[in-house]
């Protein structure tokens, strides 16, 4: 299990990545996280919602209410241009972080 402390700094990058190509709604993102991490990490609902909220108030996401084909009305989230910039910054930060930590892994 991944400790929530370790991954906390990277919830933003995970969510922004998954919204890169198209808007998505809460559970859809949650399931993609579990699938893409091959079940190694499941983001708790409160963590996910808290991240959506924070990213939206920072202007990285925009939310709108939308309807799936033949389905329910849901809140969708979409990446803003600032969001894309933020993703690039977080990505660069991670590359450096990874390089540093890797120096101490045998």
């Amino acid at each position: 299990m991944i400790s929530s402390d370790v991954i906390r700094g990277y919830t933003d990058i995970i969510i922004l990545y998954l919204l890169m190509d198209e808007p998505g709604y809460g559970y859809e993102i949650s399931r993609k996280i579990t699938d893409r991490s091959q079940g190694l990490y499941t983001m708790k609902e409160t963590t996910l919602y808290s991240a959506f909220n924070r990213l939206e108030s920072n202007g990285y996401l925009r939310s709108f209410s939308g309807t799936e084909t033949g389905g329910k009305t849901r809140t969708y989230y979409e990446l803003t241009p600032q969001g894309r910039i933020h993703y690039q910054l977080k990505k660069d930060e991670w590359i450096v972080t990874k390089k540093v930590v890797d120096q101490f892994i045998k």
Partner: protein
Amino acid sequence: MDAIFNYLDNMFAHLPKTEEVVRAKNELGQMMEDKYNQLRAEGCSDNEAVGQVISEFGNLSELAEELGISNQYQSASSEDKFVSVTAAEGEAFIEKTKKAANKIGTGIAAILLGVISIIFFSGYAEGTFSPTLGGGEPNKIYIAVGLGLLFILVAFAVYLFVMTGITTEKYEIFEKKMVKLDPHYKLIIQEAKENHRPVLTRKISIGVGLILLAVAALAVSGILSEDNEALLISLVCVLLATVGVSVWLFLSGGMIQSAYDKLLNEGDYTLERRKSESVVQRWASPYWSLVVVVYLAWSFITADWSKSWIIWPISGVSFGLISTIIHAATSSKQ
């Protein structure tokens, strides 16, 4: 499915209904519903799906800042009022409680049996049961036998109480602090408590019914055959034996119930009640010690064992009255 929305309602029950809080609740509910439906579509049973959704819900304190409710979470945790309990600890606690209820019930039954024996033997010594034994010196032997039995049985009971006290000591913290459970385990305990409710009701009704029958038998024969002391003493003994059985029923039902209440912070163990309960507890031990002293002093000075037992039901009812008054006083202060 309802279980999920009940859970969510519970989590949000104490929060102010601001726009942010309502939005968060709707969004979280939507995600949980989607996840539940997906799990069901993948072949999970209702229980499995509910369990997984709730265990992956997370913790509302993560949202405290966004929702503007951080003060509430701070005040709750900073005063260190909570103790976290895992499923394994909870199960061990319930198991210990069951055993403790049996031991205490046996101890009380032993004490009552001792009281029965002293009543019976002192009646016997006075020739109540057979006229040929009336008066005379050697009958003191019977009193000695009765007293001997009483002391042995009381000693046995004290041993049981002390043993129970030692094994349950480490769970005393559950009485003082609010308990925090893993959400999934909480759901299991809620269900167990619900299943236990009819059992508790049945045990209490049988116990009360038995005591009422024995009291009625004693009262009726007291009126009809006032002079038949042998019959009256026997009925007092039957009444005490009945009380022993009923107390055992009350304990085995009630202690489990309060174990569930402690884990769920319900009933007598809500935040307000826990405060007034500790006042009652400070009272209880000197109170009952005093009752024992009065009972023994009265019995030994007057040698009237067949009457002095009346002190127990009287002090029991008074205790109930006093704790009710303390609860009322404490809650009105708040």
